[in-house]
């Protein structure tokens, strides 16, 4: 090969690099290990962690322990999907492109929105992108009211939107634990972004919030748990302008929080402002239907600094997971999962409220698969004690509610009554 190139050695291929820049292997990098050694090492490392295999998991707050049906990882591991890349050459990428189109279709039908993109990184950065998008449409308006997101989500939104003209106002939780339509007031309002269910698990009255936002001339952005749409009104039905959400719940393992899947859908009028790749229907020279990446003139590789976003690579494989998961659930399965979450969470919620020393943080507010409970002791202490009993009990809420005793508990369809009763038995033992 060197002879064909016309050089003597590999070093000649770096003759364009100034001599003083050529480095020797870094002492900070390790010596190589074999596949066998590494596999053994990581088996040991993995077994030292608490996980769904060792513990009963009641943790949520954005990432959840839902059941992942076997066909999802099985199909995802196919090299044809796993080791392909961006479908620039449509004729040799129809698998990925049609899956993108089918995903977009399912997201549109699930949310009852006109258009959906083929994925965004995660639900929270999708919300940041949605706010950029709203601002491009109404550049004179700046104020954004938001409720209610986790502390890390709020930090993320501030970081992503810092330096823009947008003025973010995170609404206080109040006694009801969710946004009140009366809080939607003032001038220059660009958008109201409401999370449903919100960080403390409560389902706000989205229809009223949407009306209140629109009455102020603001966009209404719904940040939804896509699984909850098995039982809750779809955002399109209450007039949401943009829908975002964290879709890890759709067949994607928790993976220590990444990769996630940002869902993004909107009304038709946002089409030219939508960030990210879009699969569109197309016909080949023989008139047969297929799919291509369309409206690429919005995107950075063509529009550069005037692009709608800088996103290039996305979460394609996770969108495929969601697409397979939703196909498998179908019309009735999604409602089944959502109802199981709803009733199992509400069962545990109700039973905990009956325990002495425990109380709901927001009494009477409807919850879907997660709720906030005030414990007789500090939440970190509860979590610690539960660990010893093989339970990952939840997420301390002090930063959100201000009370050290508040704990966020999530219940998915995976939890059985026996497991929930085990949790109750543990809680009863804590005084």
């Amino acid at each position: 090969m060197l002879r064909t190139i016309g050089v003597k050695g590999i070093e000649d291929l770096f003759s364009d690099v100034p001599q003083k820049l050529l480095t020797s292997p870094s002492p900070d990098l390790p010596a190589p290990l074999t596949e066998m050694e590494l596999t053994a090492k990581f088996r040991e490392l993995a077994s030292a962690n608490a996980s769904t295999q060792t513990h009963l998991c009641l943790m949520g707050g954005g990432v959840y322990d839902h059941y992942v049906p076997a066909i999802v990882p099985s199909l995802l591991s196919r090299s044809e999907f796993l080791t392909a890349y961006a479908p620039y050459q449509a004729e040799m990428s129809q698998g990925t492109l049609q899956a993108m189109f089918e995903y977009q279709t399912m997201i549109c039908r699930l949310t009852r929105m006109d258009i959906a993109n083929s994925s965004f990184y995660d639900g929270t950065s999708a919300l940041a992108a949605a706010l950029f998008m709203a601002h491009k449409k109404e550049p004179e308006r700046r104020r954004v009211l938001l409720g209610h997101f986790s502390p890390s989500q709020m930090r993320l939104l501030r970081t992503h939107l810092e330096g823009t003209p947008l003025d973010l106002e995170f609404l206080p939780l109040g006694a009801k634990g969710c946004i009140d339509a009366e809080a939607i007031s003032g001038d220059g309002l660009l958008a109201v972004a409401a999370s449903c269910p919100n960080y403390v698990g409560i389902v706000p009255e989205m229809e009223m919030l949407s009306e209140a936002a629109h009455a102020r001339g603001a966009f209404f952005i719904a940040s939804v748990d896509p699984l909850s749409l098995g039982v809750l009104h779809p955002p399109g039905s209450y007039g949401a302008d943009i829908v975002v959400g964290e879709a890890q719940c759709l067949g994607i393992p928790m993976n220590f929080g990444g990769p996630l899947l940002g869902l993004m859908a909107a009304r038709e009028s946002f089409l030219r402002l939508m960030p990210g790749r879009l699969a569109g229907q197309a016909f080949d020279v023989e008139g047969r239907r297929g799919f291509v990446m369309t409206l690429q003139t919005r995107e950075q590789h063509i529009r550069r600094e005037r692009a709608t976003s800088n996103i290039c690579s996305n979460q394609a494989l996770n969108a495929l997971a969601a697409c397979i998961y939703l196909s498998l659930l179908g019309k009735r399965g999604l409602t089944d999962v959502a109802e199981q979450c709803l009733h199992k969470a509400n069962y545990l919620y109700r039973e905990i409220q009956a325990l002495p020393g425990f109380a709901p943080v927001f009494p009477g507010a409807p919850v879907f698969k997660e709720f906030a409970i005030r414990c007789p002791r500090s939440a970190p202490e509860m979590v610690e004690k539960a660990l010893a009993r093989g339970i990952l009990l939840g997420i301390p809420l002090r930063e959100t509610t201000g009370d050290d005793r508040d704990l966020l508990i999530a219940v998915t369809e995976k939890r059985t009554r026996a497991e929930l009763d085990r949790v109750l038995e543990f809680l009863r033992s804590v005084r």
Partner: protein
Amino acid sequence: MKGGEPLLYEKSRPGRRGLTYPALDVPRTPDALPAGMVRSSVVDLPEVAESEIVRHFTRLSTLNHHVDRDLFPLGSCTMKYNPKFSEAVLALPGISGVHPDQPPQTVQGLLECVYLAEKFMAAVTGLHGCTYQPSAGAQGEFTGLKLISAYHRRKGHRKDEVLIPDSAHGTNPASAALAGYRTIEIKTGKDGILEPGEVRKHLTDRTACLMVTNPSTLGLFETCLPEISELLHQAGALVYMDGANLNGMVGVVLPGDMGVDVIQVNAHKTFASPHGGGGPCSGPVCVRDMLMPFLPGPRIERRGAAYVLADPGPDSIGRIHPYFGNFAVMLRMLLYVLRLGAKGLRRVGENAVLNANYLRARLAAAYPMPHPRVCKHEFVVSLESWKSKKGVSALDVAKRLLDFGFYAPTVYFPLIVKEALLIEPTETESKETLDRFVDAMLAIAREADENPAVLREAPHTTPLRRFNEAEAARSCTLCHW
């Protein structure tokens, strides 16, 4: 198979389902939700049996080209072979089944992984601090620019311009605009190299940084970068390097040694994560020591034998990802580095350059190249003369390659080269594979002279043929109703 596959919605039949759940084993809470909130319309998803779903997606998958099948010479995308054992490790329940908000004492092993991955990436780039929060290269660019903004603000500088060479990836100007900067385009010199004189012309006290890709998108090493960095630093500006092309110098040159202050590395490219049809990826950002206080938090630190989540301090830009970034992609990077070690990584860079130069040398007589000299991991062909003389475009050659069973190179990029084909073989291809690709390219070159129509009408053997993309954009059907 010829032709496409019907949509799942078209295969849907009322009453079919793929998965059933156990009966509800707790009492229902009838009034859990107020009646006004309950979905009244049916969730409009397809109704298909599990076996049909498996067949549907399996058939779809066979319509894709992919690295495990053959060469994927997509320039600037570094489509290398991805080790399978990494996938086996990722699937371990003690990794995939861990919640990101678990108490730190229950996830020490995973925190150690993040800590080591940061340390190794800093070593690979010759810099001091690292964050894996960015989910992709473009988000890494955005993060890097945020760090630069925070740094200048802390110093009391007012700087609102970013210098970007005209050969840059489109994400660079888009990220700069997103981060609130005005972008100033710098012309690349005749030999494809960024010249200090040209940078000096545009360098002012408003310049926040230069965003430079090295090796450049022409596949060339930016020889003057050390000198250019010095110019920037003298003007109180920083040097940002787009590390998307790191495969062309990994283990051989440290970006930090060239005066680079901030770099994003597309970990999925150089460090061998499967690209998943477009993601998920990972865009870790490494910085020089003076920028470390600005990194997003929480920081993972080692205290004694334990790993802890530490507050990033008051200067931190905050947060880019809700958790630790695309952890699974980060873990693949870590496994790759542990498997190869320092010397193995150096061989990656060397062999990537060897393979690219071999292809370049073998194609040089048949394909016009604007920069016919030693390249790094990729090189550019320009078919401008073919277009005018033979009526054959870069797109035609790309489409014809599909008939030979190869994916096409990147086309029409970089934008400064007319009718560009950007070819990147990576180090994981054997000489035999490269030779087969050369044979195909040479056959296509002959066809361009003897029978150009066969190129213009290509592809001929793929499941579907060339699409009317303009019509697709006009009708814009993004969803099947």
